[in-house]
Structure formats: C-alpha cells, structure tokens
C-alpha cells in the first residue's frame, strides 16, 4: 500500500489572475514580442531625448526607427506624462522629457 508523502503545507488555490491567464491560454507570443518591442523603443527614445529636445524626424534618424512608430510612442509617452512639447522647429514640434525642458 503506497503512502502519500505530505509536506505539511496545503496547496494554495490558484489566484483569480492565474485562472484568467490560464483561461486565455497564457500571454500570446505576439503580445510578448510587442511588449518587448515597446520597451526597446521607449528606451531608445528616452535615451535620445536625454540629449535634449528633438522632433519626430530627428528621433527617427537618431534611433533608426520609422517616424510613424516614433510619433505613436511619443504620443503615448506624452499622454502618460513622460514627454512634453518644447517649442517648434520649422514644420515640426520639438519634444522633451518632462522636467528637462
């Protein structure tokens, strides 16, 4: 007759977030890649803006990123309080890290 080995610790029931994650089949590879890419782009933009205010084309050239992507990420950073406008340069707006302008 086999014996059940007990550790003395009761197994914790899964938390609601874990249940939902399992129900959704975990985090998709596409979403993981997208979040990773978001982190990479934000890091590059922050680093470039640390050197002073930049326009979208300037950031695109410096970070080697397409300008539509730069604009979208910059506007996300602006919406959530990380980036502000810092004047204009010809037909473009200059953006700066908040607090550095």
């Amino acid at each position, binding site marked *: 007759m086999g014996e059940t080995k007990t550790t003395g610790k009761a197994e914790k029931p899964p*938390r609601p977030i874990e249940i*939902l994650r399992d129900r959704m089949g975990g985090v998709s590879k596409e*979403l*993981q890649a997208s979040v990773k890419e978001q982190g990479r782009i934000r890091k590059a933009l922050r680093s470039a803006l640390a050197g002073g205010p930049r326009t979208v084309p300037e950031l695109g050239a410096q970070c080697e990123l397409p300008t539509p992507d730069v604009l979208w990420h910059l*506007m996300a950073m602006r919406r959530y309080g990380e980036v502000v406008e810092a004047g204009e340069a010809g*037909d*473009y*707006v200059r953006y700066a890290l908040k607090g550095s302008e």
Partner: protein
Amino acid sequence: MADIRTRYDALVIGGGITGMQAALDLGEQGYDVLLIEKYASIGGIMVGLNKVFPTLDCSSCICTPRMAESSHHAHIQVQTWAEVRQVEPEGDGFVARIERKARYVDEDTCIGCSKCELVCPVDVPHEFDQCLGARRAIYIPHGNAIPQKAVLDVEHCIFCGKCEKVCPTECIVFDQEPEMVETRVGAVIVATGLDITPMGKKPEYGGGRFLNVMNPLAMERVQSSNGPYGRVLRPSDGKIPRKIAYVQCAGSRDRSIGIPYCSRVCCMYALKQALLLRHYIHDVEVTLYHMDIRAFGKGYEQFYRRTMNEGVRVIKGKVATINEVENNDVVVRVELLDEGGRVEEHRYDLVVLAQGLVPAWHAHGVVACAEADDGFMATPEAKINPSYTTLVGVYVAGVAAGPKDIPDAIVEAGEAAMAAAGRLQRIGWHRAPAAAAAAH
C-alpha cells in the same frame, strides 16, 4: 453595478446621442428605460467629435450633459459594455436577451482614479482616438466617459498583476465572467448609429494604405483639444500640415462601391473641419474637391459661404486617384469640372477622405425587423411614422434609420420615444404587472 431587472417599459439599444435622447424623452414621462451601450461609456460618436456645425459649439460640451442626465435619471438604467443578443415578441411585449461583457472591474467599487491605468505596462492603440493615440490594457475609456470606470482589455493583458496591487479599492475582478440576462419590455427603440465607409472601399484613393490619407473621424480627434496629438499633426511624421485637401463623396454616391446614396453630412463636416484648420494652423492652405455642395440644413448655406470667405478653396472637381510620393506626401489627380474636365495634379501634406455613413449594427439574427436595400433599418411608413420599423413595437431613430445630422437624429429620437410611449399606454404595459392584473 445594478442588476438588470426582469421588466422595464422600454429597451433602448445604443447609448449615443440618439439613444440617450430617446431614453430621456421616455424617462421624463415616467417610463422605466433600460439603455444598452456596447462600448464602455455612453456618448457614442458625438462625444468624440471636436465641434458641431454650423454653430461650432464644442461637441462634447453639448453631449456630456446629456450623458450625465441619462446616467443619473431615476427612470433610466444605463448598462454599458453590454450587447443585445436577441429580441423576441412575447405576449404584448418582448423578451430581450442581453450579454453583459466582463469588464474585470467591479463598477460599484471602482472610483475612476486611473491608478491601474498609470501603472499598466502595455500600451495599445486607442479606438476612441482612431488608433492614432494610445491607451493602456486597463483603462478608463476617455476623459469624458460615463461611467468613469476602468475596463480591462484582456486580449492585451500580460497578467502582471500591477493594477491589482495598486488599486485602492480592490475593484479588479479577474474572475468576472460575461453573463446573459433576460428582461421583458413593452417597446424597443433601435438607436445603433453609424460607422463610416471602410477606408479601403476605393483603392484608388489609398485609404488604409497611405499614412497621410486620413478618415474624417480621425481628423475630428486630431482637431480635438483632448485628441491624440494635442494639436493638428499628420500621422506619418508629426509634421504640422501646411497643404491639406478634402476629397468629397469618397464613400458615398458611388454605385461602384455599393453605396449609391448621399450620406448627407459629409459636405458640412468637411467644410467645418476645413474652416477649423484655417483657425488652428497659421497660413494653412485647405482645398476641398467636390461634385456639388449639399448644405441643406438651417444655417448651413451661410456656413458654406463663411468657409469660403475665410479662405478655404472649394473646387468643383472629381478626384481620380491619390498617390503617395516621397516623404509620405500625397498627390491628388483631379478632373476640374468647371474647366472642361482639365486634369491637374497637386501635392499635399495630408488628405482627408470624406467617407460616408453606413449602419453600425444589423438587426438580422437579433430582432425580426427588415432592412432596406441600403442596409439601414427599413421604415415602411417613413412619411407619417418615420420611426416605425416592420415589427410592431420596435422603433428606430437616428442614423440606424438612414444618414442624418445630429439635429435630425435628436428630433427622430423624440418621435420614436413618443411612438413608444403611445404603444406602452395602448397595451397597458406601463402599469405594474400586479396593478395590470387587478384591472382585468
């Protein structure tokens, strides 16, 4: 969040300006209304518009009082993030089956503090801003949203749990599930509003392919003070556009795309946007190419004249093609109708396609109301009872019945509410079931 009761006087499908007005017109008469909205906030298209024509009043400033009134009205129960799945006749009234989608947030305890949104690490293109701006995976729909409650987009959630940790009221409910509820109503008003013609309908215009060929709702958001850029910029590189063209009838009056009707509002919204661009951008050149201008409403012709007087170039011309050139600029090839069909090409920073209106919702499979050939709800008594559908007791108002502007939609909402009220009186639905039984 209040439970959906087993009985109301009327069900209003759609929480845009038309649905809210119909609900208010019924609620003010003492009828109990259930207002169902598929999005996480009421307000519909109107709350996202910049200004309204011809008065140039702030659109959300007109819409938000209606939203607040609907949401606080003693006789109106607003249910957002829900969809009507079926409406079937039963006895004198209808039984409605409604899906309450999982918000993953307890609406009763969420205080709309945004802490969850601020800490969420996932940015997602925001539908409210036509995907030009960002929201988070957990977010409050927008600044004017009612209710000011968060909603979790579970498709973009990475289950990091940061929102749960930071929430001061512990309102994140990851194990919330969608539920199907059933209720009985004496009348139904369909106020499901509009979509715009898909941008890719006319491939020769490059909609959906060229970054600087924009749809008119995107331009509304770009012009809005709370829009994605905070000022007017073009999407390809954030340039302040100095040369902008509007192409009229880009999604209506065109048999080749299956939309032969005039959408009625495109001339006016384009003229309004064009005029505002002249106000917002110093020295901007705005040209509007049209087949003919239809300025049919009160004060609209005067507004059209004002737009031209303030420097918008309005040219009778049929745009043949739009092509993208270097720097994502766009070249418009146009046949000038007042100059014997002479063809010209002009280069622009940005082009807005005046897309037409199509129905946002179809009754098929939900309620047995017929649609007209154009896809909008059929209104067989359009001349004398414009809100009547082909099913007695189900009424329609606003763009769900056909393209129209905001004033006409509001008038129609009132008409539908009166028609529904008349029916509720006729069938004796308004009285409580017990009182109605005693009267028999």
